[in-house]
């Protein structure tokens, strides 16, 4: 290999900062921003000893899209479409977090039917998000086929949701005070059919993938996370539940009509990648349960409170926490009484989960790092915002 002197290296400041003088016998490796398991444009700088990771530092910001700055330039309703683009995999949860925060701020009562529709579409979206994660994680582990099956199921959800929202991915279906439009007539029927279909597929996934020896070898005991570390890093969602904490915003701070449904929060105590994997797969069933209950008791009525396009909430601030597919989403909105928010802060669950990576990856092998990275379920635009 060529010898080089860091002091003469041009350009990338992050690399130079990461390189502490002489690195004999060690190798500095840049993973990403273009890397198949970077899930977008994450970059991780690694110091390797052979294949063992001595030090890892994620470099983020490659997809920083100024959402918080844009919020201050737009009116409350105009900012809504941005929510579909923060976390495109679980856009509905972000929709809900923002709409909910603004509703709290102005004190709008959301009609019952809208609440139920919100629950159904959010849970459908959660399933689709978990399916993408499942496929992508196995792709990271080198199994090429499951992702095809996952996307096959996901397309069924997208069919339902595009009939409802008119969009496949970056939904902006919620409005302040309800949802944008009523669901089509066959919505309930299609949801029930889909739940049935997914339930029939889950045993196959378990037999073919979850119980696979190689997969277990790659997941079990990898990236073990204790509750205390998770708490200090602010990990939420399946990452936290994989460490055995029964914490879910849908239960702890019930929003919408979640307190009317019976559902189980899956938790596993191992805290490794496999536990996180199982939590997510079990959550598919939880979501199915909720969808079934919500669809069967969908009330009639209006789907949106009457809200002006441009309105001025009272001064003050409000936060709304929502359980997203990746964890606790919080939107803090602060109003100065004008038509535009004074400050909007988006709390992305992936941001906190990602900051765990450096801790978890230390001392593992390169392949384990890929497995850990996948098990955290990262959506980079959500982290960078």
């Amino acid at each position: 290999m060529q010898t080089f002197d860091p002091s003469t290296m041009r350009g990338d400041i992050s690399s130079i900062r990461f390189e502490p003088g002489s690195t004999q016998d060690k190798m500095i490796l840049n993973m990403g921003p273009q890397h198949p398991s970077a899930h977008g444009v994450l970059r991780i700088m690694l110091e390797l000893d052979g294949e063992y990771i001595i030090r890892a530092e994620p470099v983020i910001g490659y997809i920083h899209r100024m959402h918080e700055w844009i919020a201050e330039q737009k009116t409350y309703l105009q900012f809504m479409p941005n929510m579909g683009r923060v976390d495109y995999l679980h856009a509905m949860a972000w929709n809900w977090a923002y709409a909910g925060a603004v509703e709290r701020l102005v004190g709008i009562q959301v009609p019952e039917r809208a609440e139920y529709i919100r629950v159904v579409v959010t849970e459908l979206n959660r399933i689709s998000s978990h399916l993408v994660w499942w496929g992508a994680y196995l792709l990271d582990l080198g199994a090429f086929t499951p992702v095809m099956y996952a996307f096959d199921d996901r397309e069924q959800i997208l069919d339902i949701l595009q009939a409802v929202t008119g969009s496949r991915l970056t939904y902006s279906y919620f409005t302040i005070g309800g949802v944008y439009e009523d669901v089509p007539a066959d919505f309930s029927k299609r949801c029930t059919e889909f739940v049935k279909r997914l339930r029939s597929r889950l045993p196959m996934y378990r037999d073919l993938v979850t119980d696979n020896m190689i997969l277990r070898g790659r997941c079990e005991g990898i990236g073990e996370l204790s509750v205390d570390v998770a708490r200090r890093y602010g990990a939420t969602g399946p990452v936290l539940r994989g460490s055995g904490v029964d914490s879910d915003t849908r239960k702890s701070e019930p929003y919408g009509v979640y307190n009317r449904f019976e559902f189980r929060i899956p938790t596993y105590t191992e805290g490794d990648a496999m536990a996180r994997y199982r939590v997510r797969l079990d959550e598919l069933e939880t979501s199915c349960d909720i969808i079934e209950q919500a669809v069967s008791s969908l009330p009639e009525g209006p789907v949106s409170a009457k809200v002006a396009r441009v309105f001025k909430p009272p001064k003050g601030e409000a936060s709304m926490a929502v359980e997203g597919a990746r964890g606790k989403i919080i939107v803090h909105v602060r109003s100065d009484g004008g038509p535009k928010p004074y400050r909007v802060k988006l709390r992305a669950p992936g941001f906190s989960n990602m900051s765990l990576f450096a801790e978890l990856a230390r001392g593992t092998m390169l392949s384990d790092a890929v497995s850990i990275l996948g098990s955290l379920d990262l959506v980079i635009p959500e982290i960078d915002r």
Partner: protein
Amino acid sequence: MNAFLLFIAHPAARIILWLVLMFAFIGFNGLILVWVERKVAAYVQRRPGPLHVGPQGLLQPLADAIKLMGKQLVTPVAGDKMLFWAAPLLAFAPVTVCFLPMPFEGRFNPLPMNLGLVLILAFSGLGVVSLCLAGWGSNNKWSLLGAARAVAQSVAYEVPLLLSVMAVAICAGSLDLYAIVRHQGAWPWQWYAMKNPLAFFIFLVCAVAETNRAPFDLPEAESELTAGFHTEYSGMGFGLFFLAEYANMVIVAGVAAALFLGGFQGPLLPGVWWYLLKIYSILFFIIWLRWTFPRVRFDQLLNISWKWLTPLALLDFALAVVVAGFRSIK
């Protein structure tokens, strides 16, 4: 006609004819295998796969090959230019030699010798040198990691592979593939796969590992090492690695078919068809594996070899020696 037979009778001419045939076979087979692999993958994944480029996408590999030939060849500035370009050639060259002792047809033996198996094993072992050179010459960290993995993996799996091969060779009492094939019969219960299933299993696992195919495709693990040892190769440099991979697959499948599945022996059909059928069944199996399993981790891979396969292969070898010994006493 007579002149042709006379020409055939000359050993050098036979070898040349064989080599020409084999080159055509490797090239053609590479194209077919790429298509088969994609179609099998598509079938496993429940999608059509290549469909519109030629009937059922049959011309797809041809288009890929011509496109690869037409691509710009990039040499890394900081790399070792000579090693960098020697590597793909070195990956491909031993492949042709390995086809020489392959028993395609009982009546036609281009190079009669009693060391065919050793020739194949020796030259297929060369393949790892090319991966090593590719990783080093690219001056790319991913490539280097890939090369390091390739060497460790190759060393680990040569051992059980050789032991399982030797178990069969001892039973057959020869290192000539033709003799080993003749030692078996046309029916499955006369094959070594039935007589010594453990060796067959060990050989198959090692064969997949030696050809760097999933679930043992660590040197080029896509999601970990970008493209591993061939990260820096563009155009035909990559194409040669690609072709060599498929040719290596055919070689291991050919050896497996000859050692364990009775080679060209079979009822009714001419031997060459039986042999090809057996080769392609094994290839299908290898492809099937790839699209089903996740990748193992590096230390697990080595553990499988050193902790399981090697002791098992040793045991199997010892058994084979005892059995062969008793038989010779009788």
